[in-house]
């Protein structure tokens, strides 16, 4: 009996361990000076995925710097931002649980920075009824939905497209036909559809869209399929920017593809080139990362410098999801309120523009999703062509012009 008692005590101690860890002083930040209050902001990211870890690193870098430099001042009161970040494992259930915890346990009123449509959509069933403001890295019709009032998309995949194809036309005047190579999931299918629409409007003919399962590493069957369709241009909507993209380029190169390439996302060059030979990228027209343009903005170069100083290896992918943070800061400042309802209705009605390491960005409406509030993001863009192993700058477009271009491309005059 004694043995059993000892065992049960041990077991309870074991189970209580995580609780103890959570209460240990190391976990709580040092108390801030009395006049500065702390504002909890939530985020849920996939820690089982490189993208999530890079985004977490980015937040851990820019948020303390922001607190130290300016901080967030609302109605004269200064706030230090404290990010509570949970793992959502990139799944719907994980996202739901993380958001339940953020909203109901940590009582956050703002969730800034979520990746992946499954966890975001699952989280929305919690945040919308609870009137929690969400800036997320997703913009599918299931997220930017007329029923949802408190969510804003900061992913710029779709809004990148309209000016891209004129640049493509300029670089390859004889190109007529396009094939899309996309991941076989929600994002890939949506983007392939949008790309087809924009490309058609720009005078191209879309022959087909080829879908590959997201975790594919062997792209040879897909590349041979693309080559057998004999297009002038191959487009990669929704493709992950790293080695996955590199493997696709390599497979096309090996299958004997000689035509033009266009990437609607800035590729992560170091990773791409680690698997694909330089020749495979030759002539690719792409969005350029803001750090690689001839005169990068001070914010972008500062970001890259800080990142390299703190983490060593530079990760271009980390830039992708941080606009959400700057959008949130700007939205709160503009409304001068910490009431998520007030902030949401203000920016929904009046729009918002902000500056981030990615360049200037602004909110736009999405009439094509029957969403007549400012809810999706456009961001200023730079275009380049990949020649002889490096970028050749082609030009750039401001957020305002991009918004107009989007309006013309997608909303067919219904834009008011």
């Amino acid at each position, binding site marked *: 009996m004694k043995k059993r008692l000892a065992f049960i005590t041990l077991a309870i101690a074991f189970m209580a361990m995580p609780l103890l860890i959570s209460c240990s002083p190391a976990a709580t930040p040092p108390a801030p000076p009395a006049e500065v209050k702390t504002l909890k902001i939530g985020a849920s990211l996939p820690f089982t995925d490189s993208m999530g870890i890079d985004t977490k690193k980015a937040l851990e870098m820019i948020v303390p710097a922001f607190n130290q430099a300016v901080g967030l001042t609302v109605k004269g009161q200064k706030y230090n931002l404290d990010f509570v970040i949970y793992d959502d494992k990139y799944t719907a259930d994980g996202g739901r649980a993380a958001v339940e915890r953020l909203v109901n346990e940590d009582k956050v009123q703002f969730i800034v920075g979520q990746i992946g449509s499954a966890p975001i959509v699952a989280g929305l069933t919690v945040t919308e009824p609870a009137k929690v403001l969400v800036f997320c890295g997703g913009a599918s019709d299931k997220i930017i939905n007329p029923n949802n009032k408190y969510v804003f998309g900061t992913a710029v995949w779709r809004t990148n497209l309209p000016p891209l194809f004129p640049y493509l036309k300029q670089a390859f005047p004889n190109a007529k036909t396009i094939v899309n190579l996309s991941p076989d999931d929600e994002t890939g299918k949506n983007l392939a559809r949008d790309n087809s629409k924009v490309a058609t409007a720009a005078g191209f003919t879309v022959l087909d869209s080829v879908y590959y399962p997201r975790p594919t590493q062997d792209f040879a069957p897909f590349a041979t399929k693309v080559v*057998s369709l004999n297009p002038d241009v191959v487009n990669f909507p929704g493709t992950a920017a790293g080695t996955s993209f590199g493997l696709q380029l390599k497979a096309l190169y090996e299958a*004997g593809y000689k035509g033009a390439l266009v990437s609607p996302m800035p590729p992560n060059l170091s990773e791409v080139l680690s698997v694909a*030979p330089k020749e495979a990228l030759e002539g690719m027209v792409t969005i350029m990362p803001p750090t690689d343009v001839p005169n990068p903005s001070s914010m972008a170069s500062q970001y890259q410098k800080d990142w390299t100083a703190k983490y060593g290896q530079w990760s271009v992918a980390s830039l992708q999801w941080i606009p959400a943070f700057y959008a949130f800061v700007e939205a709160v400042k503009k409304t001068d309120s910490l009431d998520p309802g007030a902030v949401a209705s203000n920016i929904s009605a009046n729009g918002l523009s902000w500056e981030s390491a990615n360049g200037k960005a602004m909110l736009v409406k999405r009439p094509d999703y029957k969403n007549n509030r400012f809810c999706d993001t456009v961001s200023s863009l730079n275009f380049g062509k990949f020649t002889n192993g490096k970028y050749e700058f082609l030009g750039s477009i401001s957020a305002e012009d991009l918004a107009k271009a989007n309006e013309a491309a997608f909303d067919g005059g219904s834009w008011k």
Partner: protein
Amino acid sequence: MSLSLFVQLLVNALTIGSIYVLMVLGLDIILRGTKILNFAHGQLYMLGAYVMFLFFQALHWNFLLSLALTGLALGLVGMLIYLGVFATLARRFTPTTTFSYRLLLSAMASVGLMMILQQGTLLGFGTQERGIQPPFPQIIDSFGVRVSLMRLAIILASLVICVLLYLLMNKTSLGRLMRAVSYDPEAVTLQGVNTFWVFVFCFALGSALAGLAGGIIAPVFSVTPAMGQDVIFLSLLVLLVGGIGSYRGTIAGGLLIGLLLSFGFQLLGGVAELFVFMLVIVILIFKPGGMLGEAAE
């Protein structure tokens, strides 16, 4: 379908098929020898790619030497895993422990390992995705057929490994001992052989095969922590289609799945995978034990 396309698809099918053959031979040796359904096999494959990256890409050693060392290193990892985890688990079992109970607990232990290895690699090696520059980047382009030399080299290398494995299993006393243990460990024990080290060797050999598969394919694929995550599903599929415990069945199954996927993606697109899975279920209606295996517990 033109000849050129056909040859390309065939080479692709054989490349990917031969990798699955190596994976599944390893999985099968472990399963038959030690009665462990190793879900962490994909992670061993991933580790193989990382070790290959270390030797070949970072240290610039000779390709074949790096490959051999990758096999050895993963064999060592497998041995440590067996000694540390599965041997301890095997001690929990009594002679009356039912087969399903052993199978379940060892599979669950391998799931724990899978979590540790996967996340450990992500945190240990960082989030950066890597690639290995292929040692044979040339492309053979003749008679209108384009084939990557590296892919041919992979097929050849897998073939060599399969032959070596066949010789090991059939022509050496160690191989015969391993097969005897997989049929009836009790009888082998009664003959005064210490089966424990045979189990260890089975697990190490299976892990080495997974590592070799990862190491060979790494120059064609990329090296990422997630690369082992999904390969296990198709490997298990191949194991089932070929028939558990059948050397020839595994090879036939691996090549069949390679062909089905390669030609399926070309002809059907994304739904090809779904069709392959359905087809497997149909095969199992008529051949419950897989193509060349026996239906057995």
